[in-house]
């Protein structure tokens, strides 16, 4: 029955949900696709295996395909991102000891990143005056939403990453161990790994991605550019299957089943209770349960649309943290990595509500707002950064210049 075979790599994270459900609930099969999922242990492995054709597509950190196309990866690899795998889903957690110090310095809860960041700055100042070691925070990859949102948050709170806080790379499943062993003082990672560390009693959730930058991009479907070109129809089928899966994941009544499926041995291989809270936006932060609006959005608010403004924001952060030099050519390469054209062509026939633009001003919407769309009603936002800054992709140069000015002042 299935005429098309696709092998996809993924990492054990909550936001692999759309890929997992496309397979487990038959959405891929309905499109004539036999979808095989292979769990991997590192993003490097995902990259290597997609490069040599073991995988056709993969669950990827949104900045990964951009980094590949900018030549920042160890092997030559051209990727496209024709679909996003949801919005949000990450949190910043800190050790119990650091949280106690931050609480004394005025930290409140995860919904107030500015207050939590200000408290962290005071703790860092105090530690410096006492001659204590620099704090160390873990992120999963240098080219990741985690790295960029953590550094954005720190910098906006007057903490300079690198100088004031060391940033280390820690694989998601090892974050709980690393913080328990004192190798790191905090981390920014996708769910369920914050909840796992909290449940083990090793960490407290300090703030969340959904508060640092509301409705912000996280993972994408990464596809080898060559493969996308040679298998246009198969890819379109896959995108339709993934969209249907995203709709299924977005239904509140499916969350229990989704948590049960994701927690299975082939996927996250964890108790379902570690997954369910984050899916429901009810986070056990270590001490209390916090309701977080839009913590993880699989489908609502155009969560699967590959906004080129998201690609450009990631690019602006790569420039900011000196991963790549800014040029008009590089910016263009980054923007074109995200492919709303492929998304539109594949999903148009489904009658899905499509945004009419490829880019939007990030941070323009302070509340849910109906926006221009090809058909039907599309609600976007809020999409603001916690510090009130606005990213207008049309003003990329000015944004990048302002970032580097803010650093030289700090």
């Amino acid at each position, binding site marked *: 029955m299935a005429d098309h075979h696709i092998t996809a790599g993924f990492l054990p994270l909550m936001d692999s949900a759309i890929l997992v459900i496309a397979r487990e609930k038959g959405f891929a099969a309905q499109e004539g696709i036999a979808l095989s999922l292979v769990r991997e*242990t590192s993003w490097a492995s995902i990259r290597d295996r997609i490069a*040599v054709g073991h995988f056709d597509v993969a669950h990827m950190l949104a900045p990964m395909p951009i980094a590949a196309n900018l030549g920042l990866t160890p092997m030559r690899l051209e990727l496209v991102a024709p679909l996003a795998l949801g919005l949000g889903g990450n949190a910043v957690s800190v050790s119990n000891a650091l949280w106690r110090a931050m609480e004394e310095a005025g930290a409140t809860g995860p919904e107030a990143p500015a207050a939590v960041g200000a408290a962290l700055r005071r703790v860092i100042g105090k530690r410096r005056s006492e001659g204590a070691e620099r704090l160390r925070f873990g992120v999963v990859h240098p080219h990741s939403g985690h790295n960029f949102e953590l550094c954005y948050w720190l910098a906006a709170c007057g903490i300079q990453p690198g100088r004031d806080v060391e940033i280390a*790379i820690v694989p998601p499943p090892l974050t709980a161990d690393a913080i328990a062993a004192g*190798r790191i003082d905090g981390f920014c990672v996708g769910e369920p790994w914050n909840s796992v560390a909290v449940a083990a009693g090793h960490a407290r959730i300090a703030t969340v991605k959904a508060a640092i930058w509301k409705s912000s991009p996280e993972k994408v479907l990464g596809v080898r550019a060559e493969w996308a070109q040679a298998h246009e129809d198969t890819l379109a089928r896959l995108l339709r299957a993934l969209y249907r899966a995203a709709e299924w994941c977005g239904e509140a009544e499916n969350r229990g089943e989704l948590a049960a499926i994701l927690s299975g041995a082939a996927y996250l291989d964890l108790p379902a209770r570690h997954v369910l809270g984050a899916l429901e936006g009810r986070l056990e932060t270590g001490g209390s349960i916090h309701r977080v609006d839009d913590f993880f959005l699989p489908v609502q608010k155009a969560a699967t649309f590959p906004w080129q403004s998201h690609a450009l924001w990631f690019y602006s952060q790569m420039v900011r943290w000196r991963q790549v030099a800014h040029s008009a050519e590089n910016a263009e390469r980054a923007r074109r990595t995200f492919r709303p054209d492929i998304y539109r062509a594949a999903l148009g026939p489904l009658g899905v509500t499509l945004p009419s633009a490829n880019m939007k001003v990030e941070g323009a919407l302070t509340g849910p707002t109906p926006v221009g769309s090809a058909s039907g009603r599309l609600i976007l936002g809020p999409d603001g950064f916690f510090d009130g800054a606005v990213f207008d992709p049309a003003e990329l140069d000015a944004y990048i210049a302002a970032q580097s000015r803010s650093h030289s002042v700090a």
Partner: protein
Amino acid sequence: MHCTSFVHAQNKGMLPRSLSVLVIDENTVRAAIIEAGLREAGHERVTVVHDVNGIAQRIAAIEPDVIVIDLENPNRDMLENMFSLSRAVKRPIAMFVDQSDQSAIEAAVDAGVSAYVVDGLRQERVKPIVDMAISRFNAYSRMARELEEAKSALENRKLVDRAKGILMRSKGISEEEAYALLRRTAMNQNRKISEIAQSLILASGLLDE
């Protein structure tokens, strides 16, 4: 000493000293097999590390020219990031033998090897090392697979024997009849005979309770 080796690496006209190879593998058996292979091939400066904690200091001390890591090592993102920060390794590292050598990359990934090479090293010096690692990884995988197969064949035979015994006792049939019954059931259900045996053992265990 450190200065001398640096000059050596820079000066291609001089007799090349043997390369320093670092093998990072949590699998101690496989690491030993690779190390033995490299030593047999005349590489004296081989270091094996099983635990990545404190690896930055080790790398700074060893100054490896070639680093071989198990592709499935969960710490590869951390290690790659460290290699790309010149502070930790002192010298820039270009990953994989040569970006243009697609077949070498494929062979390495197929075998489950990732290799990182100091930038500027001539490919003909590095390739034999990477090829050695690939062939030893493949040999190890083959061995592990054969061992696994032998183990599961033995397990399956034990399961089938137990299931036969249960059928013989409960139905009062001969060993041959019991085996034929198992085989027929497996064929009808399109499952392996060992799976049927396992279900039967499980079911009979439940009934006994």
